[in-house]
């Protein structure tokens, strides 16, 4: 019995331990099987945290191996054998006890020193040339404002590669937490307070993240993505976001119908798209995401639907089915209206 116990006691954690070590050793994989991983950083802050974590991880492995081995050896060696006499009644051993008090204390110091260094390294002091972005958490979507660039967008954060970025994070309602793990750790978005994250993205790519503080019914649907672009591509994106929206002309009947549907006030409840959404030159609502350039985004509804005709139509037909509790109500739209709105919104790019 004793032997069987020992074998399994040792085997279970180790067998299960292999997968965690594997990704640690492989590093960033091609094809990105884990787009929201904390172990494959693509920014200076994320890398600093990752390096610290790896250091602590190996200390933990060392302690794990030593202590579990001591436990297992004890269990095997001193298991009850037939004919074993009464054990010696030892109450303690001062030298041994001092040793095993000091040993963990020493390891703690070895972990504390790099920890405190890293705390100060990622504390959030932004260099003067950092790109300033205001992040506002809403139930359940993210608003991004680039004050220097005059851009207001939602859910998909665009950043230039190689330039420090300073996020100033707050909330419009309850507590959220901004988390894009490949770039940095999470930082809470709290009403009445502004918190900061500062980092420099080092690789072009699209990285997933999501709200990490429980914020109500659709917390799970409050996702985000960060697109890091080469400086030239980023500038092009900025230019596209800052040009005035394309005017709708009378030859585009469907789009024109969509604009009309967008502005229509509906009974009951006086629901209207314009009450909550801004499209520059058309409406000024601020409760929902700014849709001036919604057609340029890849996803909808904070990352839960693809921003294509099918995804838009799904969202317009029944937002509450896609995102339970959403502030955007389910409005009885005709299929013609849905098609027109899809065309109109896709033209806002």
């Amino acid at each position, binding site marked *: 019995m004793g032997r069987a116990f020992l074998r399994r006691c040792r085997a279970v954690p180790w067998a299960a331990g292999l997968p965690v070590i594997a990704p640690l050793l492989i590093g960033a994989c091609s094809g990105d099987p884990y787009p929201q991983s904390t172990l494959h950083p693509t920014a200076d802050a994320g890398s600093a945290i990752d390096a610290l*974590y790896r250091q602590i991880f190996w200390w933990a492995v060392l302690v*794990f191996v030593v202590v579990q081995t001591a*436990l297992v050896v004890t269990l095997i060696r001193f298991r009850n054998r037939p004919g074993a006499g009464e054990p010696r009644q030892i109450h303690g051993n001062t030298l041994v006890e001092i040793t095993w*008090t000091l040993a963990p204390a020493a390891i703690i110091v070895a972990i504390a020193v790099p*920890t405190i260094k890293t705390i100060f390294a990622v504390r959030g002091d932004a260099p003067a040339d950092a790109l300033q972005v205001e992040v506002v958490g809403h139930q359940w979507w993210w608003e991004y404002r680039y004050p220097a660039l005059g851009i207001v967008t939602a859910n998909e954060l665009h950043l230039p590669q190689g330039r420090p970025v300073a996020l100033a994070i707050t909330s419009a309602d309850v507590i959220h937490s901004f988390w894009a793990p490949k770039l940095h750790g999470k930082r809470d978005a709290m009403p009445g307070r502004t918190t900061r994250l500062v980092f420099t993205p080092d690789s072009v790519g699209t990285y997933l993240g999501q709200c990490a503080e429980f914020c109500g019914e659709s917390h799970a649907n409050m996702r985000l993505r960060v697109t890091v672009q080469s400086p030239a591509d980023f500038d092009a994106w900025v230019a596209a976001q800052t040009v005035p929206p394309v005017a709708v002309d009378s030859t585009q009947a469907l789009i024109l119908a969509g604009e009309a549907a967008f502005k229509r006030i509906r009974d009951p409840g006086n629901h209207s798209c314009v009450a909550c959404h801004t499209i520059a030159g058309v409406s000024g609502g601020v409760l929902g995401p700014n849709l001036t350039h919604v057609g340029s985004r890849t996803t909808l509804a904070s990352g839960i639907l693809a921003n294509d005709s099918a995804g838009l139509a799904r969202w317009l037909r029944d937002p509450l089915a896609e995102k339970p509790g959403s502030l955007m109500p389910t409005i009885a739209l005709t299929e013609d209206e849905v098609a027109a709105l899809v065309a109109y919104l896709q033209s806002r790019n």
Partner: protein
Amino acid sequence: MATTAMRHTPAVPQAPTGLWSWVTTTDHKRIGVLYGVTAFFFFLVGGLEALVIRLQLGAPGNTLVSAEFYNQLFTMHGTTMVFLAIMPLSAAFFNFIIPLQIGARDVAFPRLNAFSYWIFLLGGLFMNASFFVGPLFGAGSLSVAPNGGWFGYANLTSAQYSPGPNIDFWVLGLQILGIASLAAGFNFITTIINLRAPGMKLMRMPVFTWMSFVTQFLIITAFPVITIGLVFLMLDRVFGTTFYNVAAGGDVLLWQHLFWLFGHPEVYILILPAMGIVSEVLPTFSRKPLFGYAVVVYSGVLIGVVGWGVWAHHMFSTGLGPIADSVFSASTMLIAVPTGVKIFNWIGTMWGGRLEFRSPMLFAVGFISLFIIGGLSGVMHSSPPADLQQTDTYFVVAHFHYVLFGGAVFGLFAGMYYWWPKVFGHLLREGLGKLHFWLMFVGMNLTFFPMHFSGLLGMPRRIYTYGAELGLDTYNLISTVGAVLTGVALLVFIANVLASRRGAAAGANPWNAATLEWATDSPPPVYNFSVIPTIKDGLPLWRTGGMEPSPLPAVPPEPIHVPGGSIWPLCTAAGIIIVGIGALLHHSLWPSVAVALSGALVTVVSIFKWAFEPFEV
């Protein structure tokens, strides 16, 4: 009490029988059994909630339950396991074992003890009633269970963002349950200080009693803090005060500080009793005294003290600033030292011993092995930068389940197998016990070990759904399979309880253990000890001359008085629950006031009757 001289033959009180005798009981042993049965029931409820959670997360985009119900499930899973399962399971052992271990006839305040139990039972039912009473509150669903997380962060719990009765059930239920914990805490502190047998010096007390003693101090100091937080929240919700209302100058971080100032000591409230149990079981099945008894006791005390200085490590992601981060990180890491010392002392206890792997021993050894893992992941996120990645992910879920399931629950099962013969007079079956252990050990690791990876690879907590693009399907599926296996393990335990209920009599000391509870019969007579022994040694049953008289006489040579029964503790508890129901109805003023006032009346009358009740055999 003055009338005792009338009898010349020794009076041997017999335990009364019948339902009424249980409803009115003030016998610490019966209250212990009631605590155990009730807490185990809530443990199964919380486990069922966990199982549904795991089934929902078994595949990405699963639609077994709605978002709203999922949020209720994880809120109630956490709340139930902490307040209705693990704490009261520990309380079952406090009740049954502590008076026996210190050589007392009962606790210091037997009726207050009964009151603690009844308010715990009724408070637990009050909170869980929320699953079934939605229509009474005009809700569109049957269930209006609490849905703000067991941590209930402001301002999501405000009337503005949570207008339904869900949070009211939570905020009132926790205040009610706090009364039970506080009353019990004061009761056990008084008991341990005042009712020890002659010669039972503090440093001769069994380690379980010691760790329970530390726990009671944590309870009486930590619960007032959360009570303040809850009262503020209740005032905000019911009377429109603005403690957590940012728009009116309140602060959402105030709640977090109050909650974690309670919440971290609460972790030690959950784990210290289990550590005490393990410290009893290991020496018994190693045939050796605990290695470094004094150090184990002091490190338990130290954990209790330092546990007060670490709360903000739950708040690193709020951006406390580098100085506060460093300080709270260091204090948190410091706890690893006394914790490590305990683990080494347990291994030292077994070293050189003659280890018998009976069921209690298996669970105790499982505790050590699993607790090491939980301790190590705890050190990982005591480092604030690492915590910024790990907090609110499944890595943290893995961590605290290794501590609370691998630790506290394994420890409590060790205690159940160990003291079962003392409580019920017969042993649980060894074969089923081993099967239970192995299923739970494997199931537990299968559930929680993969969560380390899913968390580090990007799985946040408290999400009812996740996308396949995260690449975490396999880890989640393994966790779900493990949860089912853990459920099967619990069924084996229940089968064991049923199968062994007519088992052979265990005798006073079936494990040949060293501490005082094993000196009396199994189950103990209503008066516990025929005479209160004089203690000469910390291991009274292992040392010749460790106690006098030894053995205890079979029949008490002198008349013994044990506390009689009383219905007023239950009535007082019921009155408080009625006040809570009144508060629940706060949206309709007059019904609310009427119910609350009648509850207050019941409470006051019951306390009055309680105070003037003749309380004798």
